[in-house]
């Protein structure tokens, strides 16, 4: 035992300083609070407070039919809402036993990988901002815009997309959508390569991130890490490979892994995942183009009980109008069942645990939000580091307040 003297609260010689970071600090990139205990500039402890934007999605979902839950999922990880939407639709399809056509699966992969790119892009460029490099962030934002334009062309909205339907998409992709996609495929790699040049071997950036906020593979697993943060620690767990959905098994792609689990590795893993996503988009687009004749027009499965009828028919045909009403108002009961269905969200394993008792709304719906689970390691990650490291660690974990609080 050392002869450490515990000084009374408030005394001038008190060894540590308490710093209140958040809930609305510009460096937190979201609404959550960190009470950091500092010894000089070194962190001795951090206490997180979350829940500032808790909106009771799980409670609301117990009162809503399936389609009215999709917009709730948008608002979890709003940097990549299409993945959430499709994860939810895939959960419903698994519960209902719907088999989607291959073309739908490939179109979904295109959209989900675009969402992954836009999410990783934000995260990586924000790590840059927090280490003092604003340029990368401003430069790549215009290419996120291209992704949002593709969403817009398909579903009409940009951030909270509410994209897709149970069984497929609301309408077929237009030629404009494919043109925009081709433009993105052509221009994006050049920009990403430049972005890599800016950061990857940048001495200042490396000094700021290497060895900062590291975690071992064992601890990361124990903390329930998933996604890029787990892979940065060296575990090659990816839901797309382990529990394939939406025909990911048809594609050949690499799962990048790091070794130290520090901020630099997290940056590199996300960066390489963007390249892999681009590769997946190209492959999926190639496969989509191979469909000929009638097959090339397929954009949804045949599920009349859950797939909304064509808007044109709703306005002109009685039967379509009735079906539209029944589906939207939840007049069709969901079959009873219990299912856990995960997808690889941009932050990790996004799981939907759905229990239906055969009523119009789920009996219980639990969202496994990757952010919420790995944020609890923050105290352990930052302990012993400098205050400025804590900021970078936070942004490199890619904490999204919406997902944290649900």
């Amino acid at each position, binding site marked *: 035992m050392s002869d450490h003297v515990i000084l009374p609260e408030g005394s001038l010689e008190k060894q540590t300083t308490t710093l209140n970071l958040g809930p609305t600090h510009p460096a937190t990139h979201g609404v959550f609070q960190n009470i950091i205990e500092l010894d000089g500039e070194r962190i001795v402890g951090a206490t997180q407070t979350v829940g500032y934007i808790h909106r009771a999605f799980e*409670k609301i979902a117990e009162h809503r039919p399936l389609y009215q839950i999709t917009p709730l999922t948008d608002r979890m990880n709003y940097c990549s809402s299409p993945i959430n939407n499709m994860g939810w639709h895939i959960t419903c399809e698994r519960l209902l036993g719907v088999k989607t056509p291959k073309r739908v699966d490939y179109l979904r992969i295109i959209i989900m990988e675009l969402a992954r790119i836009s999410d990783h892009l934000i995260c990586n460029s924000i790590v840059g901002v927090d280490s003092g490099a604003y340029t990368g962030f401003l430069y790549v934002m215009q290419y996120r815009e291209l992704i949002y334009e593709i969403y817009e062309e398909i579903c009409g909205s940009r951030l909270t997309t509410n994209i897709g339907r149970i069984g497929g998409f609301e309408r077929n992709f237009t030629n404009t959508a494919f043109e925009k996609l081709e433009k993105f495929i052509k221009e994006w790699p050049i920009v990403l390569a430049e972005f890599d040049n800016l950061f990857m071997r940048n001495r200042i950036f490396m000094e700021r991130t290497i060895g900062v906020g590291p975690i071992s593979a064992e601890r990361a*697993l*124990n903390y*329930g890490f998933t996604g890029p943060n787990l892979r940065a620690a060296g575990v090659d767990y990816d839901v797309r490979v*382990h529990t394939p959905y939406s025909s990911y098994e048809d594609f050949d792609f690499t799962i990048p892994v790091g070794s130290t689990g520090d901020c630099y590795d997290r940056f590199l893993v996300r960066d390489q995942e963007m390249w892999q996503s681009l590769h997946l988009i190209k492959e999926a687009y190639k496969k989509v183009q191979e469909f000929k004749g009638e097959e090339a027009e397929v954009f949804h499965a045949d599920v009349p009980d859950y797939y909304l009828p064509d808007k044109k028919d709703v306005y002109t045909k009685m039967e379509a109008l009735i079906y539209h009403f029944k589906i939207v108002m939840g007049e069709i009961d969901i079959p009873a*069942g219990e299912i*856990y269905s995960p997808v690889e969200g941009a932050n990790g394993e996004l799981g939907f645990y759905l229990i239906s008792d055969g009523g119009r709304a789920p*009996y219980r719906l639990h969202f496994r939000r990757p952010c919420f689970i790995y944020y*609890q390691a923050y105290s352990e990650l930052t302990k012993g580091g400098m205050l400025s490291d804590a900021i970078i660690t936070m942004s490199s974990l890619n904490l999204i307040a919406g997902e944290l609080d649900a």
Partner: protein
Amino acid sequence: MALSNELIRQKLIDKFGEELTNWEEPYGMLTFSATKDLNLKVLQFLYDDKELQFRFLTDLCAIHFPERKGEELAVVYHLHNLVDNIRIRFKVYTDINTPDVFSATALYAAANWMERETFDFYGVNFIGHPNLKRILNIDEMEYFPMRKEFPLEDQTRKDKDDEMFGRS
């Protein structure tokens, strides 16, 4: 030998016998339940056993069944064996008046906040949890809002002055 649902079930029955009940496989996921004082023993066995190796806690949440007298609350664990890539679901039921369940925090660091969330919304009292307080709701809250006796607000209610929110 690759792990299969039958094998896991056999190993668990060999170890715990009749204590484990409600064997099901909804959508291919092996599901079973145990009495609540056994939860840690089962989790520990699943974690330690050389073949089972369920070392990843995917998810932990609760469900409220008001009509099941004596076992109103269910705590659900989703576990994942990452080596053989197989998932299982494990439930323990508890009485709502004495909702005491042993905490899994010693085994899985991930359980910490998930148990706090479960406590916050369902009032499950995790014994042995290092810091069991509310996490998403305000600290002053006096009830457990995800329990089924709390309905959402009636959309047609008239007794509230909602002029400012467009619902007059």
